[in-house]
């Protein structure tokens, strides 16, 4: 027995050598760990990390995929912010879109998960499915296009006319006044995804005895219970949910495309993501598109940092 336990390689004592030597020894001792990580890590670096850095480099160049990129410095960025009016419009739209769908979908996920927490397990499973299903059902959101269809077969127009609220149908997805609002509604409809499930699980990890103890300590109602006990306990889930909501809020380009076509009417639902597609996927101005990608990337990461800071204050 003592022989086998000696075969297990013990961590090297750190004090015996310099930091570099120690790191190298530790790396050799953990060869298997690196082998196990390697397949994932190589793909991850090639397809996720590398593209980010490549975007940053290309954003400083002029590149059309055919000729060698030529160095342009920050001119792509000055052009974006000073000359490109559609980009500024896209920024506004993106911010409206993200500032509404992000927080609202986050709060909805949290509230609904909380509401259904005390339901009996069977009923809870069914209700969970009802709320979660739209987010995994792929193109089901296209039904909104039928419901708001501009001809007489659209249910919304038919109902509104039937009720006498209006006399002629509204072209919902071709009207710049409505497009943004509708896209937000549909985006919210598909947004109760992984974060929602994480919250449901989070609520269930809170021990009932904590609530009972709180009741003894004078917590008066369920709102106090939520703020002082439940939310601080599930803060890690809330962080995770926030990250997903933010990512989701900036990534709704495909939904908008499918609902109102590209480009949308008067660019009313044109987001930074669309601008990126336009220059990268259609005009092949890769340098300029990369600059757009870098801006979007910076916005998303900084949103995450700010929200994480804010969430660490919950329940204090």
């Amino acid at each position: 027995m003592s022989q086998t336990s000696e075969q297990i390689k013990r961590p090297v004592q750190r004090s015996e050598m310099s930091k570099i030597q120690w790191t190298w020894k530790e790396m050799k001792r953990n060869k298997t760990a690196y082998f196990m990580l390697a397949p994932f890590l190589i793909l991850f670096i090639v397809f996720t990390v590398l593209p980010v850095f490549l975007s940053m480099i290309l954003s400083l160049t002029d590149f059309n995929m055919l000729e060698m990129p030529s160095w342009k410095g920050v001119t792509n960025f000055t052009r974006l912010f000073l000359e490109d009016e559609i980009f500024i419009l896209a920024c506004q739209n993106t911010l409206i879109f993200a500032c509404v769908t992000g927080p609202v979908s986050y709060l909805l996920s949290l509230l609904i998960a909380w509401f259904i927490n005390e339901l009996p397990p069977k009923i809870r499973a069914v209700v969970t499915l009802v709320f979660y299903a739209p987010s995994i059902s792929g193109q089901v959101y296209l039904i909104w296009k039928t419901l708001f269809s501009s001809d007489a077969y659209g249910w919304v127009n038919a109902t509104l006319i039937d009720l006498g609220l209006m006399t002629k149908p509204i072209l919902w997805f071709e009207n710049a006044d409505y497009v943004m609002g509708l896209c937000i509604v549909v985006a919210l409809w598909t947004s109760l995804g992984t974060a929602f499930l994480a919250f449901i699980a989070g609520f269930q990890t809170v021990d009932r005895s904590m609530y009972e103890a709180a009741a003894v300590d004078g917590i008066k109602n369920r709102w106090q219970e939520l703020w002082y006990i439940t939310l601080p306990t599930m803060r890690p889930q809330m962080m995770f949910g926030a990250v997903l909501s933010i990512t989701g809020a900036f990534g709704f380009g495909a939904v908008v495309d499918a609902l109102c076509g590209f480009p949308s009417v008067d660019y009313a639902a044109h987001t930074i993501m669309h601008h990126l597609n336009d220059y990268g996927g259609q005009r092949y101005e890769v340098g300029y598109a990369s600059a757009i990608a870098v801006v979007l990337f910076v916005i998303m990461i900084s949103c995450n940092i700010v929200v994480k800071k804010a969430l660490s204050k919950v329940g204090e």
Partner: protein
Amino acid sequence: MAKKLRTRGHRVVLNRSAGGDTGITIVLTLMGLFMFLPMYYVIIQSFKPLDELFMFPPRFYVINPTFDNFTDLVTLLSDSWVPFSRYIFNTVFITLFGTLGNLIFGSMAAYALAKLRFPGRNAIFQLIVMSLMFHSTVNQVTHFIILSAFGWIDTYLSIIVPSMAGTMGLYLMKQFMETSVPDTVLESARLDGASEFRTYLTIAMPMVKPAWLTLIIECFKTLWNSGSSIYIHSEELKTFNYAIQQIVSGGIARSGAGAAATVVMMLVPVGVFVLNQSKIIETMGSSGMKD
């Protein structure tokens, strides 16, 4: 402190007002209807015969249910230039291999990150968390450049290989392993002379089955629902979801077949979720992020 605690048996009755209960029920019902009615409408549409589809005003129920739309869908798709079966094959092929690769590579990486201590571990995990913070479409232009450098544009590889490095399932599995696989069990396997890889395969993996399912559904739903892609332009490599998009955009004349196609597409992920809901929620219990 003035209020006396109510008890039932030995349990303290929590502070629940009747007004609050009613309010919550009402809000939940309204929200539930908002979520459910569009789904219900798609299903109803798919069973409506032609004359009811064009009935004005549109109805939220069906008088003479029929399977015509589903048979129409099959005829419509077999008339197309690329046969129906090819689209389905593409979707199944991409989903199967992408998910399988993600499960193998992701779980190995998750095990290493959760249970082994090695230099660079934290940095790599931070990088993975960071990747959850931005949407992958930001990268699509440079992603395209890299894929074309490999010569993978317009091949299955352009979709399958990058999806094997999906980080969502990996993240959830790593978190789950940390809480539900005790180090002592692994240590005793190592003492018995099991290699690290063997410990992962025979001890750790069987203990985290719920996390497998979660990883599978995370990867599966993305791949299954992938539609037109800028990396694929050959018609015979496109997915079923793309074909559906074409049918639905065919306008009102095809709305029956479109609804039927949507129902077929959503049945699979919803079915997978229904069968595994409790396991997925179990995994999510450890999904939390430390600051």
